[in-house]
Structure formats: C-alpha cells, structure tokens
C-alpha cells in the first residue's frame, strides 16, 4: 500500500493509494479527489459543520460497490470531532462531525466520495434548518422538466413570502431549499408544509409533477419528494462529489441560470469538479444564505 503523509494544522495524516483511479473512465484519481475537496473546503465546511456526516464510500471506485457509513469509524484519529445521536428507539450512535479541513481530508482518504448530511445539526436533531424539496425526474424527464418545476415552486413559495435557493443534485435532479434557521422549527411542520406545497403543485401541474414515489407514476414527470423532511433522512451535501461516470458536484445555482436553461441543453447545468472550484472562487458560496436567512413557515 502506497502511503504519503501530509501535515495539516499540526496534525499528521497518512494518505493512501493516491494514484488509484476512483473515477476510471476520465481517469480521476484519489489525489484529484483530495485536491478537489481541499479547494472547495472553504465553501463546503460551513454546510458540513456540526452535522452527523454519512460517508458513502467507494473503496474500489465509482464502478464498483459502495457502502454507507453512518457510524464514525472506530479507527478514526483521536482529534476527529464526534457526537452521539439517537434515532427512534435504537441505541445511541457515534457520528463524525466534519468541522475542519483535516477531518474532511481524512474522510476523503477513506474514499467517501459522497458526503450526505441531515437537515438538522447533531446538537438539535429535532430542529430542521431548512425545508427541502427534492425534485427527482422520472424516466423520460430530465433537468429541463426539473427546472420548470423548480421555477414554479420558487414562485409559489415567494407568493407565500418565502425565499428559496436551488442546487443541482449532481445527478439528474434539483434540490430546492427554504431556509428557516429558527429554533422553533420542527420536522412535523416542515413535513406538513412541504407535503401541502407538493400536492398543490401536483394538482395544478398533473402532467409535470407527481408526489407518488412509485417509479411507474413518475414516467415523464418530476417527483417532488417532500418526505426528505425527516430527522432520519440525509441529503447530499452541497459541493459534495457524486459517484457517477464523471466527477459531477451537487452545486448551487442562481435562479436566472435555471430560467435560461429551460428548453436548452440540460448538460450545461451539470457542474464538474474543476469548474466547481473555479465558480465558487469567483461567485463565493451561493448557498451561504441557506445557513443564515431566518424565515417562518406561514399558516402553521
């Protein structure tokens, strides 16, 4: 096993198999992945901070098997911050908090290409920071349909006095976030709200939107998955890589980008790793407001 050591903030970290092609098709190696996360870290770390991180690990690369790691591995370095979380009536579980660059690099050295986080912080697991609408196009639908649905949803929400932000899932879908950042927020409320909004969308755009999870209900439509608004669920973290044939990123977009994209080549909305760092450095963190903006859900 090839091993190199890096020193970060006075901590010595072994990095292994840097030359391994984790994305074999474009030949993107683990060194490239570590480099990406190092470059994106200033923008991504605030979104990982104090959240129970789920590692989706691809030890043999994106074309081979992967597994979810929710528990913080017992072989972690002593300086990795952890929290205890309880789900339902299960035993408490130790989870990793990716609060600094060295923890992020350590996690990536484990080939955790995808980092997923819950909508709540570990210290307040019952308090969602945002409402999320997970827009997932079914067979025969894609980013153009998804963009239309996201734009209608944005207008619907803004008519209710709520601002929303959007990012690509890094796969075929889009994620619309409505930040709340209030200690009174509950998943009961966010679920009630997102379900009602999704059902109104389906009622008025039955040919475009479905709230049914069954695959055959989704053909040529966009499935609005409101049930992600749950303490037990996680979403792909903004700026995380996705395990696809190429290293696409879940990346924040500006609404005008979506407006321009409707009816155009869907590929242009996909953001690849090299472009992600460039764009973030130029535009800053477009998802910053998702962590800051305080909003209250009306009529609940």
């Amino acid at each position: 096993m090839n091993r190199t050591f890096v020193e970060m903030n006075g901590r010595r970290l072994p990095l292994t198999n840097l030359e391994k092609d984790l994305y074999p098709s474009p030949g993107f190696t683990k060194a490239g992945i570590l480099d990406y996360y190092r470059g994106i870290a200033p923008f991504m770390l605030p979104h990982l901070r104090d959240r129970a991180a789920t590692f989706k690990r691809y030890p043999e690369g994106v074309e081979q098997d992967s597994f979810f790691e929710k528990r913080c591995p017992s072989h972690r370095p002593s300086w990795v911050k952890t929290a205890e979380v309880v789900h339902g009536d299960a035993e408490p579980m130790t989870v990793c908090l990716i609060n600094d660059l060295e923890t992020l690099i350590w996690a990536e050295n484990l080939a955790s290409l995808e980092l997923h986080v819950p909508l709540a912080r570990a210290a307040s697991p019952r308090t969602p920071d945002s409402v999320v609408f997970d827009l997932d196009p079914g067979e025969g639908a894609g980013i153009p349909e998804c963009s239309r649905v996201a734009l209608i949803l944005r207008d619907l929400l803004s008519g209710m006095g709520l601002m929303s932000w959007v990012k690509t899932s890094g796969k075929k879908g889009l994620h619309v976030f409505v930040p709340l950042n209030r200690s009174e927020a509950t998943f009961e409320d966010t679920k009630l709200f997102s379900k009602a909004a999704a059902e109104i969308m389906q009622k008025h755009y039955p040919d475009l939107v479905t709230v049914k999870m069954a695959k055959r209900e989704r053909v040529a439509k966009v499935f609005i998955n409101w049930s992600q608004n749950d303490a037990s669920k996680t979403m792909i973290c903004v700026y995380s890589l996705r395990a696809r044939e190429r290293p696409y990123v879940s990346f924040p977009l500006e609404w005008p980008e979506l407006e321009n994209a409707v009816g155009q080549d869907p590929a242009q909305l996909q953001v690849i790793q090299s472009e992600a760092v460039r764009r973030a450095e130029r535009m800053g963190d477009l998802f910053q407001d998702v962590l800051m903006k305080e909003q209250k859900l009306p009529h609940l």
Partner: protein
Amino acid sequence: MAVQGIWNGTVSFSLVAIPVRMVTAVEQGRVSFRMLHSTDHSPLERRMFCPREERMVPPDEIIRGFELGPDQYVTITDEELESVTPERSRTIEILEFVDRKELDPVYFEHPYYLVPSKGGEKAYQLLVEVMHRTNKAGIAKFVLAEREHLVAVVSRDNALELITLHYRSEVLPGDDFAPRKTALESDVESRIRKSVKKMKRDFDPGKYANERRTRIMELLMLKAKDQTPVEAPVPRDDEGEGPADLVAALEESMKKVKAGR
C-alpha cells in the same frame, strides 16, 4: 454499443500498446427475486445476527476471522488485507503466445470482451487478425477487483476475448476420479463408437434454451399482465390535505403564479 466497462487500460506486448475497456461476455441466466414481507410487501434486508446475545450486530462491530478449527479464529483487519492486495493493473501485459488448442477448457473461469478505446482501433484489428490466422492465444497476468488473474486473450468474432483462467492449484486432476484401467471388449467398444457417430452434430448452443428461465419469465409476464403488481408501502405517505389555512394560502399563491406565466 454503450456497455459500461468494468476496467479500462491497455493490452500490450513487446512494443504494442492498445487502449481497451473490458466488458463482460456473458449474462447471468438466473431470474433473481427480491424477498418481501408477506403482510405489506416491504422489501426485506439481510442483517447480521449474534445468536449468543440474540441481537442485530451493527457494521462497526463486525470484523473478519479465518477459521482455524472449531471456535478458533485468527482475525484480520481491512488494512492488513489491503496490504497484501496487489495494486490494480493498468495493463494486460501479454507474456507469451500459445497454441489455442493447448488451452484446456477446465481452466476457463469467466469470459469478457475487450473493446478498443479511442485511437486503438487499428492496432486492435491487427492483433485480432493475426491471432485469428495463427490460432494463438496470448497469456497474461493482471489484477482485477483485488485479485491477480492469469488470463488468456483470444480472437473471437472479430473481437478480442479475455478469459480469466483458474490457477493450476485450483484445478483438481481428473485421474483422481478415473476408474482403474481394465481390458475393454472390442464389440462393445465398436457399438458405442457407432452410436456416437450416429449422434454426431455440429455444436450449436442456440438449439438449447434455458427452459426453466423461459418458463419462469413467461409466467411472470403473464402474471404482470393479469394482476396489478403489489407495491411496497411508501413511508408516511398518508392521504389528506394540509391545514385549511395553509392550503388556501398555497392556492392563492398558485393562482398568481399561473396568471404570471
């Protein structure tokens, strides 16, 4: 053909290097089923169970052990296993060419096709052609999915086929199972010889179908047409509208959205 490759690299020998990707040459003929809970059709999962403590064991409490004898194990960590795992190879380096008829099928493990990548088409064609004309197979060693394989590269239907081979130590010698030699009566032998000759045909695997699979698939398609498929329950997807005020406000907002479009 857009089959996803399971490996990308080059086939090389002496000074030739041909970029290729590898795809599997056979599909599993088995029909696979999901296990469902009969009461509500939820898909079921496998979990690790500790019979002594009578509880499910979470992944971080599971390690590997090699069984030495009854209730005796040596344990091994992922890191230790990784330390003895060969590096993934980027090349299939052909070490020697052998006559194809020398390749004993008992050694054949799994067939793959090598597909030329961009820029490699010409050299690929040449190699296919030469191997076909000379009826030779290239023997190479390479690492796939952590295992080092001995492989044979042969030409087949104008493409390169790669067959992973068993190691010598894995193949049991047939003479262990052969009966002791005795004198054979010549009339019996000639009778058998005749009936073999009578039954001689050209090998045509297309004649034989996996009949059980065909029948299962026919049955499944028939059932799928006649009955509505059962569905796994959608978690908490209860019907019913939201609070009246909220729904009214959403309807109001939606009216404006539609007017504005």
